[in-house]
């Protein structure tokens, strides 16, 4: 018995020693990430900012918030940070929480601390929603271009889409008769395309059907040309134009920033998918008869998500900066709502008398954007196997 035990353990121990220490993906990630001090700092501030923004939303919302960002006290305007309120001139309701103006007051006597808290939530949502839109769109377009890229767009597809668009255009110009006619034709054409998808076109003798089935370009070409077209627009100028022409609202800003920044993600995802789909594990999964949908989302996406995460983190930083820039120019979130950009923009008129109105929001934006950038770069170093080996 004893000898058997020893021989068994003898068998097991060398095997264990020969293998690399077992670590899950997350442990591996943390092990590598821990070495980058700046990235750790960035991550801490990243989560702290989340916390502040949530707390800020809770404390400044509602009818009687703890910190009222909209309460105007004209007799208390432009008080410096940490100033005590003048209790004789204030109603009991108007006294700030903790009995002190933590960040001072602005030119209307509003509590800057309360406004900064409210603005944190705006910056956070603008960053996340805008980047969410751009990442979803980018993954969708990049995934199609990378996975279904070789499929061809045929002449009848273009015809169908063209007819539908023509119909929509006529409808938009109040020409109902032509509009519905073209829409109907377009839908018929689309149904026709779908019905003949299965039949092979190459073998058919030359006839009208053959002409309609001509391959024009591949889906990959189509999507990459769309990306090229989008890249031709100067992005800040385009955002500015659209935001200025549309009615001022925070949602418009998020959507516009999202719709003008998906091109990078598309390129990453496409490149990753192109290389992944040739690899053996995808071939194996396909041989097992797994559906396209599952291959894309369960097997390929986790391998392609690294660069997307990195660009998303840095994209949030860029979106926050863009929103601040728009607010600064006066096209940001409409006035009753405070954002860091418009606090700074209002404060710039008092830059010599009340420098805290410029410096507090400015430094806050700087710290948050810096932490996002550092965190993103840390992620990039960890997720990039090439850099990992070298260091």
């Amino acid at each position, binding site marked *: 018995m004893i000898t058997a035990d020893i021989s068994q353990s003898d068998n097991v121990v060398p095997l264990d020693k020969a293998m690399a220490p077992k670590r899950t993906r997350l442990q591996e990630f943390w092990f590598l990430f821990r070495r980058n001090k700046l990235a750790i700092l960035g991550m801490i501030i990243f989560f702290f900012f989340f916390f502040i923004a949530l707390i800020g939303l809770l404390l400044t919302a509602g009818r009687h918030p703890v910190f009222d960002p909209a309460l105007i006290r004209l007799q208390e305007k432009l008080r410096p940070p940490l100033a005590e309120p003048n209790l004789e001139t204030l109603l009991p309701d108007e006294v700030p929480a903790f009995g002190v103006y933590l960040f001072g007051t602005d030119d209307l006597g509003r509590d800057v601390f309360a406004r900064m808290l409210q603005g944190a939530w705006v910056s956070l949502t603008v960053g996340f929603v805008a980047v969410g839109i751009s990442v979803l769109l980018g993954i969708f377009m990049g995934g199609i271009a990378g996975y279904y890229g070789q499929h061809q767009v045929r002449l009848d597809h273009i015809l169908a889409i063209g007819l539908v668009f023509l119909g929509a255009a006529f409808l938009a110009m109040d020409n109902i008769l032509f509009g519905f006619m073209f829409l109907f034709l377009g839908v018929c054409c689309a149904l026709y395309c779908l019905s003949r998808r299965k039949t092979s076109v190459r073998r058919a003798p030359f006839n009208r059907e053959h002409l309609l089935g001509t391959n024009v370009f591949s889906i990959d070409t189509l999507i990459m*040309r769309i990306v090229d*077209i989008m890249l031709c627009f100067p992005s800040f100028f385009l955002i*500015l*134009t*659209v935001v*200025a*022409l*549309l009615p001022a609202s925070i949602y418009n800003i998020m959507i516009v920033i999202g719709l003008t920044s998906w091109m990078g993600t598309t390129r990453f995802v496409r490149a990753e998918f192109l290389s992944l789909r040739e690899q053996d594990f995808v071939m194996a999964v396909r041989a097992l008869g797994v559906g396209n949908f599952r291959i894309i989302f369960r097997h390929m996406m986790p391998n392609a998500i690294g660069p997307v995460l990195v660009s998303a983190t840095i994209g949030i930083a860029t979106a926050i900066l863009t929103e601040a820039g728009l607010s600064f120019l006066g096209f940001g979130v409409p006035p009753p709502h405070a954002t860091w950009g418009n606090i700074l923009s209002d404060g710039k008129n008092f830059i010599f008398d009340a420098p805290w109105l410029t410096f507090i929001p400015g430094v806050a934006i*700087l710290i948050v954007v*810096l932490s996002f950038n550092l965190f993103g770069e840390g992620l990039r170093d960890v997720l990039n196997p090439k850099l990992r080996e070298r260091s």
Partner: protein
Amino acid sequence: MLSFFGRSIVQKIVTLFFVSIISFLIIHLAPGEPSQIDPLNPKFTFEMVERFRKEFHLDKPLHIQYLYFYRDLFTGKTVSWKDNQSVVQKIWDRFLNSLPLFIVGTILTWTISFPIGIRSAIFRGRFFDRSATFFSYLLISIPGFFFAYILIIFVVTRFHVPVIGMETFGLGDTSMLNVIMDRIWHLFLPSVLGATGGIAVLSRYVRSQMLEVEGQDYVRTAKAKGLPSEQVHYKHALRNALLPFVTMFGLILPGLIGGSVIIESIFSWPGMGRMAYEAILARDYPVILTVNFVSAVLVLAGTFISDLLYLLVDPRIRL
């Protein structure tokens, strides 16, 4: 080779066509009209608004307006709706104002970021590298307008020089030296601000390119041969690391027209960016569309030039 250029040019023209359509649609489908820009002004009677609409073809359907606009653009007859001046002339004037900013900013960017990037690649992980990394992140992250105000406060209180605008108003007939110094001071801050982001990004890029090359076998061979380290770094490594940057000369072309809306409005610099901003405020569609079109042309020309430079510089690429 010729077929490559032919295809590329055709492709770019098609892209430009779609860009023109999309920018036209974005502008014209947005709610509101330029004729409603000032609805409360009592001078604008209904008849007058109708006359303006007729004058600028705003009463025609969209595709006719599109044709009218681009016909005018290509014959150079587009006029601004705001002041009836020729748009091409307007853009050219503003372009000449933006040009010094662009040139000084570009020179600053390229001359500062290369030494920093190369040095931090050579001394990788040392104090210089780490502080350069941190400062470049700082410069990327700082909002341009906030940095502008810090610099303005610093320069104005320290050196007592005027910085807003292109030149001091009413300088009169002082000596030539004074005038030149005045222009340089006015030029200094906006171009430094325009260059900061570029310096930060480009120096990081130079660093990563240098690191990539320094890891190559031929650099190790050069070191093993016992070559002095200057020769290894600057002759063997740097020359190969420079390759991607040659092509970036093409990609800075769009910066010519984009300018910086924010910096130009802070410094009241009458450049392209500020003109575009004013045009957006006034809903001056011809100016907005022309700026957009020209910048799209510049982007496409830039990519074309960078492809061309790559062919010239890198002997490994053959078509």
